[in-house]
């Protein structure tokens, strides 16, 4: 599992919790992975959109202009499950090797 897949899993997991706008997603992931630039996260988010794992719509923001919100699609939920399985297997393998 590459770091890109990990970031992808995090984005899908965040969207599982509800629709979010782009900047919110970028900030949250940048806070969790400070060595990863936000443009990298944005590129992964666009990739997810292109592959049909997420979709976007224009939504109202409080007192500001309309923002682009992202939401998870059915394909995105399947992808999240796949990545989650991979992550669990990786964790199990690491524990087996004594990495805690």
């Amino acid at each position, binding site marked *: 599992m590459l770091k890109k897949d990990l970031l992808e899993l995090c984005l899908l997991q965040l969207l599982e919790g509800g629709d979010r706008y782009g900047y919110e997603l970028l900030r949250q992931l940048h806070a969790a992975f400070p060595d990863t*630039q936000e443009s990298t996260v*944005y590129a992964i988010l666009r990739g997810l959109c292109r592959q049909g794992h997420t979709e976007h719509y224009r939504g109202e923001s409080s007192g500001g202009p309309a*923002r*682009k919100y992202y939401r998870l699609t059915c394909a995105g939920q399947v992808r999240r499950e796949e990545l989650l399985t991979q992550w669990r297997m990786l964790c199990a393998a690491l524990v087996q090797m004594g990495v805690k």
Partner: protein
Amino acid sequence: MEPSPYLIRLSRIARWRLPPKEAADVISDYSEIMAIDPRLYEDQCKDYGTPKQAVKQLTTFADYGRWMAVFLVLAACLAAPAAWLLLQFPHFQFELPREALFLPLLLGVILSLVWFRYEGERSRELPIGLVPQLLLLLALGVCVMFLAGICFSPALLELSGTASPGSAGFAVHLLLCGVCALCVLAGMAGLVRARLGDRRWVGVYLLGLTVLLNTLFLLSVLHNMALDIAGDTWWVPYAQRMGLLAAAGVIGTGVALC
């Protein structure tokens, strides 16, 4: 609100590297982000990466490779004939295969029109500066044709025996080389601007290419060592070919502006 320097640079790079629709989408997303998070350019570079890095991550090899191939071919249509001119400086001992001048024109017209029709964007209003540049190139083209008319006229041939043909010829040669340089610069700028903004800038590229090729054609006729100018109508085939080049280029430019 003024766009931030980060957004300005990112927009330029995105329009160059990404297909137009995707570039517009990325610019819109970053505009939204920059509006929420307005910071200094350096701070934004620290978190987002430089604009170039940001766009590079979004670039797909196939899309960018296709554009680069088209750009190189179109640029070569302009640069290769000009390079031919430069390589022969100052003697011009080589004979230019004049029919070969139709190849870059046809390639330039067809490829640029097809590519920018599908991969270009067109704004509602005419881009600022487009008409003056087209008029300037058109004026240069008319001057070249006028000069060709003077060179082809039998009166001038008679005059050249009494006037100073050496210095006049050198002046005409320099003038035509200057026209060629101007056409290459204008054409390249038109090509780049067609990608970065309105596709109708390709009209400047096509008109630049047309004037360049016509100028080269005239130069090659002036340096012609063939002994086919004995008859009165020696110039007719040359004038016909120059007219054909000009007509094809002007029609192409007209289509590009639609």
